C-alpha cells in the first residue's frame, strides 16, 4: 500500500476530475429522469387509453433489464440506427430511461396512495379533473414520494459507475486508470473512491431520513 504515491497531486486531480464527471452525469440524469418519470407516472395514473398501457409496457421492460445492457445499447447499438452518442450522452440517455422508468412507478404508486375520497370530495365541490389532480392529488402524493425518490437518486449516483464499460471518464474509470499505474495504489484509491461515493450518498440519505421524519 502506497498512500503517498497514490495520492500525489496529479493523481488526486485526475480522480477528482472523475468525481466531477460523476456528479455532473448524476445531476443531469436525475433532472431528466425526474421530469420523464413524472410525466410517464402521471399519464399512467390518469389511465389515458392506449397511451397508458403502451407506457406501462415500456416501463416494465426497462425496469426488468440490467442498466449495463442499456448503457451498452445507447453507446454501441444506437449508431446502427444513425444515432451516434459520445460516452457522456450515452450514459445520460441510458440512466434517464432506466431511472425514469423506476421513477414513473414511484410517482404512479404515490398518486395511487391518495385516498379516493379526497378525489371524490374535490370533484363534487366542483373542481375539474385536471385541477383535482394539480391541487389535491399531486401535492399530497409528492410528499409520500420523497423518500423513495431520494433512494432512487442514490441508486442513480451509484449506477453512474457502470459507465466505466463505455470509458466515460467518471470516478470509477479514473480510479482504475490510477490503479493501473501501480498496483500498490489499489487499496488507497479504492478507499478514496468509496469515501467520495459514500459522502454524497450518505448526505442524501440523511436528507431523505429528515424529510421522512417530517412527513410521516
Amino acid at each position, binding site marked *: 500500500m502506497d498512500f503517498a504515491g497514490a495520492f500525489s497531486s496529479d493523481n488526486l486531480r485526475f480522480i477528482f476530475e472523475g468525481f466531477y464527471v460523476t456528479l455532473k452525469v448524476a445531476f443531469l440524469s436525475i433532472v431528466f429522469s425526474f421530469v420523464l418519470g413524472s410525466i410517464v407516472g402521471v399519464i399512467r395514473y390518469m389511465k389515458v387509453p392506449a397511451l397508458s398501457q403502451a407506457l406501462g409496457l415500456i416501463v*416494465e*421492460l426497462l*425496469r*426488468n*433489464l*440490467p*442498466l*449495463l*445492457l442499456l448503457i*451498452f*445499447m445507447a453507446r*454501441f*447499438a444506437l*449508431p*446502427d*440506427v444513425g444515432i451516434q452518442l459520445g460516452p457522456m450522452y450515452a450514459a445520460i440517455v441510458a440512466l434517464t430511461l432506466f431511472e425514469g422508468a423506476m421513477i414513473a412507478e414511484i410517482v404512479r404508486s404515490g398518486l395511487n396512495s391518495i385516498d379516493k375520497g379526497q378525489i371524490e370530495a374535490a370533484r363534487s365541490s366542483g373542481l375539474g379533473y385536471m385541477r383535482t389532480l394539480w391541487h389535491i392529488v399531486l401535492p399530497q402524493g409528492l410528499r409520500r414520494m420523497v423518500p423513495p425518490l431520494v433512494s432512487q437518486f*442514490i441508486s442513480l449516483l*451509484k*449506477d*453512474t*459507475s*457502470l459507465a*466505466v*464499460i463505455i470509458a466515460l471518464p467518471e470516478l*470509477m474509470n479514473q480510479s*482504475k486508470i490510477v*490503479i493501473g499505474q501501480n*498496483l500498490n495504489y*489499489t*487499496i488507497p484509491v*479504492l478507499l478514496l*473512491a*468509496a469515501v467520495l*461515493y*459514500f459522502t454524497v*450518498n*450518505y448526505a442524501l*440519505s440523511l436528507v431523505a431520513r429528515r424529510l421522512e421524519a417530517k412527513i410521516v
Partner: protein
Amino acid sequence: MPDFSVLTDYFDVYMEGFLNTIYASVIALIASFLLGTVIAVFRISSVRPLRWVGTVYVEFIRNIPLLLVVYIFFLGLPLLGITLNGFVCGTIGLTVYTAAFIAEAIRAGIMSVPKGQTEAALSSGLTYVQAMRYVVLPQAVKIVIPPLSNQFLNLVKNSSVLSVIAGLDLMYFGDKVASDTYATIDTYLFVAAFYLVLTLPLSFAAHRLERRLAKHG
C-alpha cells in the same frame, strides 16, 4: 426484423452465459440471505459493538456502488496473494453488496414483530438465540418475503456487472457475440430477451406476493 442467425449460430454461447448468470444469482442470493440475516441480528442486538458492526456494514455498503465492491475483491484480493476468477469475485461482490439490503429488509421484518413476543419468549426461559429462532424469525419471514423477492430480481440484473471483470455471464458473452458478428443491435436484443425470461416472471411473482400480503395483512 432481427437477424436470427446471430441467435442460432451462437446459441450455446448465450446459454453458457445465461446459466452462469443464474448460478451467480442463486449462489449470491443464498449466501447474501445468510450473511444478511447475521447482520440484521447484529443490528438489533443489545450488544453495542455488534450493533456498531452491523450499522457500519449496512450504511457503508448501501452507499457505495456495487461495481466498487466487486473491484475491491477483484483488484484487492490478488494483493493478498489470492487470485480468483471474475465469476467468483463477482459473485462474492454481489453477495457482500446484496447482504446489506437484505439485512435491512430482515431488520424491518424483525422490528415489525411486537416486542412483547420477545419478552414473553425470554421470560418463559428461552435464550435470546432460541427466542429469535423459534418466535421472532418465523413471524418476520412473512413480512420479509416481498422485499426479498425484489432483491432477487435486482440480483439477477446486477449480476451483469460480472461482465466488467470477465465474469462469463450473459452480458459478457453477449458482448463477445456482438463484437464477433458486428450485429450489435440484434445481439443486444437477444441478450435483453434472455434477461427478460428471468426477470419478468420474478417481477410478476414479486408483485403478486406484495399484493397478497397487502390484502391479508
